[in-house]
């Protein structure tokens, strides 16, 4: 009987671990601790909140417990990923909508091994790397490593040769944290690992180089260059391009010698996906009609663009169901004047505008 309970409990844990993902952190704001709580209670609170997140696997909980700021950084990463996803998909049938009170913030849509799932995995792993790198630059995370890429002979001291870029630690952390959940032996795991890596590479490849000369009399005889972290929006744009050209793949077992499982294009004549490409295993479900089981909201009630021939055009977005046009009073801020630091003086302009809504 005891054994049964153990098995049952672990089964439940397993199910929970599979259904949720770390990007659920974007949804519920973990009650923020008041600034005046003492350090001791703060750390215990931290411990509790890390353990309370059932959707994290053991390694992820360990990383969460590294310091009191990690959870905050994770939340930032998750919410930025969701925000960016919603921006990139604002014109698509599935608009990256989130569901409250669910084990999965996206309501189970991503249970399919679809393009959208590939995109969200890549974007979230990129957003985490980005958020961690920013926290490192801000000096919030003490853990950020200093693996100066100097040779092993020389002392590994930052005073000797400086430190590597923050994005390197961001990538390491993201790999450690996000990939901890994936199982290489399942098809889904293999796909997610590939897409996570593609997301991180999208950040690295968008870094912009800046140089400064400081030689004799400011001449360029001595020059130092560094790379700037890209805006997450640019990473999102890049990943959207990859999403549009994502490769449909299948898992191929190589029985020769060791059992190596690899992703290969579903048709032999298609290009082999490289490390920066997104891959998916299944076609996307139909996002037109609401489906409670899958958590698909459908496109009913979405606003569409009548003149556009693209995805946001009424014909495509409403899935051929037609649309209604309403005339609405529109209020918009206009003629804004920005006053540093924190105020914008705007006038409010009112005008009437046609509003198209899908049936």
């Amino acid at each position, binding site marked *: 009987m005891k054994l049964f309970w153990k098995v049952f409990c672990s089964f439940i844990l397993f199910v929970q671990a599979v259904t949720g993902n770390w990007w659920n952190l974007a949804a519920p704001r973990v009650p923020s601790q008041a*600034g005046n709580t003492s350090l001791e209670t703060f750390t215990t609170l931290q411990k509790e909140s890390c353990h309370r997140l059932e959707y994290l696997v053991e390694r992820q909980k360990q990383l969460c417990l590294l310091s009191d700021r990690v959870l905050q950084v994770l939340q930032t990463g998750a919410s930025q990923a969701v925000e960016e996803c919603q921006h990139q998909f604002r014109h698509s049938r599935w608009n990256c909508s989130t569901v409250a009170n669910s084990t999965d913030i996206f309501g189970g849509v991503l249970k399919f091994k679809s393009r959208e799932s590939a995109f969200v995995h890549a974007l979230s792993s990129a957003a985490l790397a980005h958020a961690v790198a*920013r926290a*490192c*630059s*801000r*000096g*919030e995370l*003490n*853990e*950020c*490593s*200093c693996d*100066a890429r*100097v*040779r092993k002979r*020389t002392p590994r*001291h*930052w*005073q*000797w*040769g*400086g*430190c590597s*870029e*923050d994005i390197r630690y961001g990538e390491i952390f993201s790999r450690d944290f996000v990939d901890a959940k994936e199982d290489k032996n399942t098809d889904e795991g293999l796909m997610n690992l590939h897409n996570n890596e593609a997301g991180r590479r999208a950040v690295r490849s968008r870094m912009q180089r*800046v140089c*400064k000369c*400081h030689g*004799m*009399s*400011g001449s*360029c*005889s*001595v*020059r*130092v*260059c*560094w790379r*700037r*972290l890209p*805006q997450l*929006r640019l990473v999102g744009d890049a990943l959207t391009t990859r999403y549009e050209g994502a490769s449909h793949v299948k898992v191929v077992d190589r029985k020769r010698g060791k059992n190596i499982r690899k992703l290969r294009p579903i048709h032999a004549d298609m290009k082999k996906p490289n490390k920066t490409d997104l891959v998916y295993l299944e076609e996307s479900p139909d996002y037109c009609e609401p489906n409670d089981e899958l958590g698909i909201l459908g496109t009913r009630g979405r606003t569409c663009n009548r003149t556009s021939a693209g995805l946001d055009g009424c014909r495509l977005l409403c899935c051929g169901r037609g649309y209604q046009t309403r005339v609405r009073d529109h209020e918009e*801020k*206009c*003629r*804004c*004047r*920005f*006053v*540093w*630091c*924190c*105020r*914008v003086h*705007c006038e409010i302009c009112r005008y009437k505008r046609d509003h198209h809504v899908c049936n």
Partner: protein
Amino acid sequence: MTGTIIENLSGRKLAVLVTFLLLCQVTCFLIGGLVAPTPANAQNILATVCKDTTIMKNDTTKWFYNRGKGSCKTVHLGDMHTDLSETDVVFAFQMPVPRDDRILDFSRWQQNLIGVLQLDLKYHSQMEVKPRSTITIDARLAYKNKGDADEDWKLYTRSVEKRHLDCGIEVKTEEYLYNCSAIPLFELGSLHHDFYLLNIRLPVDTPDMNTNIGHIQDLWLTVINQNGGFTKVWLSLKTIFFPCIIAILAWFWNRIHMLQRKPVLLEKMLLSLGIALCFLNMPLEYLTLHFDLPFMLLLGDIKQGVFYAMLFSFWLVFAGEHMLIQDASAQSSLKQYWRHLSAVAMGCISLFIFDMCERGVQLRNPFYSIWVTDLGTNLALTFIILAGISTGVYFLFLCYMVWQVFINISQKRQSLPTMCSVRRLHYEGIIYRFNFLMLATLLCAALTVIGFILGQVAEGQWKWDETIEIEYASAFFTGVYGMWNIYIFALLVLYAPSHKRWPVSENTSDTQNLSEEIEFSPLPSERNSEISSLTSFIRKTTVD
């Protein structure tokens, strides 16, 4: 009658010496490439936006920082705050940032600190960044040392500075960032303290101040410091070269004083070149480990400037002394070269003035920049252009002179077949060695230029093998530094007066030089002049 050592040295000895010097050169290059890290290190620091709730905003004892006890309350700039005014927002940069679970601190081996500000401005169609707008920055720099309390920041310097914004955007889309070029903010010539803190405010004292700077999303500060490892390697090289050059200088001067004649111009020039090199080699950086010496950047510039001025003047005089146009009886002096040397002097003086205007003023105010005001920009450009013109004029002069020397030598060459074989062999030897030294000079200059260009073109690490990584930038610096040291060392050795008397031959390999004495002696005007036999040879033929 004596010549210089290069004329009396046997081919084998010369080969041994050259091989030895080449080995030293390769060693210098490899030390830089394999031992030293990159010369400088850059660290990106993202601003923490702090909320200043105090009423007195000019209080320089109140500091805002994001780590340690008493850290500030942060605000998120993305949200609009109605309760905040521009004076309440402070951007705090605490450096260095922690790594590997340790609180890092600056080491004095890291020598200097340069701060570059990078603005992340969001595009909003309603508030575009106007071209040529300026940003006014109230910057305060504080320092702290190990053992001080967390809140124990002490004012280092403060200044209100203006900087030009140079921002562009490719596609004007909402929420995208402008592409702004980096703004040089400060230069500290000495990194004496362990921790630094920069607090930046963007004041609006007049209605048009900081108005057209768009929507600031983030502020990044990149701090650049010399790497401690590089300083150590560099300083070790200096410590080795300094006594070597001093010793060879003493030997050289001693040799000249053993002669009966007064030193000639070329020897004086060589001596001053050696002294300039000693000045450059002087390992003054040791002092910075104990004392706060903010003038080290400026001093470094001056040291290099003096050395280059001396080197350029030396080349001119070197070419001029072999020009064979002067009157043989007149003792050549620096006055003859005033036209040529004035180009060098002009270039150096204008660069010096520019440097004093920029780095000199930065001694008082590390945030100072000459490029901000129009007057300053014009002034700086004037001096830089003047220096450029002088350099151009100088090289024209130099090329012209070298060309003339070569023409003269080839003229003399034509008359060589009429001479007897021993004499011809000797002359050919002299010409060969003169050419050899010209070649060495050209090679050094070319190597410097090629190395520099290669370094600019191929950034980053060079890999020849997976296991061997060459740190190219450091290798370039140590290599070039070693090269000019070795070059001047060689000049001092080879152009020192020889003790060898022509008729006396202790060495069998030098027997071919034996009979020259007879050939040279009949020239009465040069019996006692004891100048280098090359010049005497050339002058002799002009008499012919």
